[in-house]
């Protein structure tokens, strides 16, 4: 097989879909933390899981926390909200408000992270699902901690080294020490299906219909 896994216009369309998805998600996060959320332009790579992990790890020295949700439907994958562990309590404080006592912040930490991840990731995926006209179901959010390697090893069965579609966006909260990544991973069969759906989407957009 030759040629790129995604053609230029497919890449363009997928980036635009993700861009619209994360822009909506940023609005949700903004209303939770009460501060403007800035976003980078999405990066899109077709790489091994190992290389995807390395892309995050080379920018991050400390431990990370991630909220992960699996999605299933016409295509399957994992969506993650990732940030440095040292930002985690600040995020919880921003979401829960300044009046919460420190011990309760700690108690609430995982719950608040899961809820924040749920809102951001759902909003992003739901927007993409609607635009591609294919429903996606989402698992419950799970909070993961530790080496960034762990975050992406997910459902990889038996150390499979296949390539994944890896999408990631940097986000930061203004006036707060909170930043991180929204990331998505899809394996090869899902990339093929997604490519078909993106093709349909492009044809619909370019067509003279309606």
């Amino acid at each position: 097989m030759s040629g790129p896994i995604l053609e230029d216009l497919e890449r363009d369309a997928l980036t635009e879909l993700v861009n619209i998805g994360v822009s909506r998600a940023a609005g949700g996060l903004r209303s939770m933390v009460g501060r403007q959320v800035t976003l980078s332009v999405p990066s899109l790579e077709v790489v091994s899981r190992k290389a995807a992990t390395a892309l995050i790890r080379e920018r991050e020295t400390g431990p990370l926390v991630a909220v992960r949700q699996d999605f299933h439907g016409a295509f399957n994958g994992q969506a993650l909200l990732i940030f440095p562990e040292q930002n985690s309590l600040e995020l919880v404080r921003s979401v829960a408000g300044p009046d919460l006592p420190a011990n309760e912040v700690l108690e609430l930490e995982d719950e608040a992270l899961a809820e924040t991840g749920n809102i951001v990731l759902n909003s992003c995926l739901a927007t993409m699902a609607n635009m591609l006209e294919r429903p996606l179901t989402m698992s419950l959010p799970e909070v993961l901690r530790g080496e960034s390697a762990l975050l992406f090893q997910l459902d990889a069965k038996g150390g499979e080294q296949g390539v994944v579609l890896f999408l990631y966006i940097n986000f930061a909260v203004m006036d707060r020490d909170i930043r991180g990544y929204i990331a998505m991973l899809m394996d090869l069969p899902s990339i093929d299906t997604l490519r078909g759906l993106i093709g349909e989407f492009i044809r619909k957009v370019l067509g003279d219909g309606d």
Partner: protein
Amino acid sequence: MPISVLVVDDSKLARIVVGKAIGALQPDWERLEAGTAADALQLLEGRPVDVVILDYNMPGRNGLELAEELRARFPTMPIALATANVQDEIIARARAAQVTFVPKPVTNEGLEGFLSAAAVQLRSGRA
């Protein structure tokens, strides 16, 4: 001379979508495109443009920064910002620069109000 509209978006597909909507709503308008804020400014050096529609999240300078610069140079130019990012701070800055919000994904319905208002404004200005 026909009314000219410049669409600035890093996504080629998004430019096509906006271009199609303009074609459906204002078929006589001349459509121009740029992929970055820098390209848009360069194009504006060379020729006049009546209306601009900007993407928000682009590599390099974002659409809101470009809108603010254009507003300073063209006080009455109809300017729209196309984005799904409707955070209060962004809306406030867009309002302050008299920039119209157009929701992404862009549809004919979403663009119609802005283009009609622009057409009315330009016609009365030229009359």
